[in-house]
């Protein structure tokens, strides 16, 4: 799970299972894939003004559909190696 820790500090967009999409800076992730984002804005603020006064939030892992990553924000080779190591069980 060190693969996700490499993303801390990057801008990500989290799409939830209720179709809400929240963009922010990744602050932390945990074993349940709960996500803490800072500097958050909802992607469609007109359709979803429900979080206008929220700037930092905790998103429960169970409700995440996707986490959109910056295309150049991740070193694919490092991710690949980390995944191979995880699969091997080390």
């Amino acid at each position: 799970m060190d693969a996700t820790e490499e993303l801390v500090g990057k801008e990500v967009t989290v799409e939830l299972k209720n179709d809400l999409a929240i963009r922010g800076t990744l602050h932390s992730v945990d074993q349940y894939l709960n996500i803490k984002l800072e500097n958050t804005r909802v992607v469609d603020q007109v359709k979803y003004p429900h979080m206008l006064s929220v700037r930092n939030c905790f998103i429960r892992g169970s409700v995440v559909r996707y986490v959109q990553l910056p295309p150049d924000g991740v070193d694919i080779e490092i991710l690949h190696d980390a995944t191979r190591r995880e699969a091997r069980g080390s």
Partner: protein
Amino acid sequence: MASTSLEPLVDQTISVITNDGRNIVGVLKGFDQATNLILDESHERVYSTKVGVEPIVLGLYIIRGDNIAVVGELDEELDASLDLTSLRAHPLKPVQH
């Protein structure tokens, strides 16, 4: 892997989005690893496309963790600058697993 805790939000005003699409605002008093929450002075904000945001006073509540989607730190300054009576929006959709 690090733990992402709700500890810094204790005694802060938070905005919770539940799995059934409700928005509940209150002061976080306690939580646990299952994300069960204890919310004091809470009220629900009901959004509608016809009228402004309607508050429903709830009081001291326990919200079960498996019904929680988002816990947001409410910025009191930002919230005060909002005119909730003129906000029109569709209610949030329920979570579909």
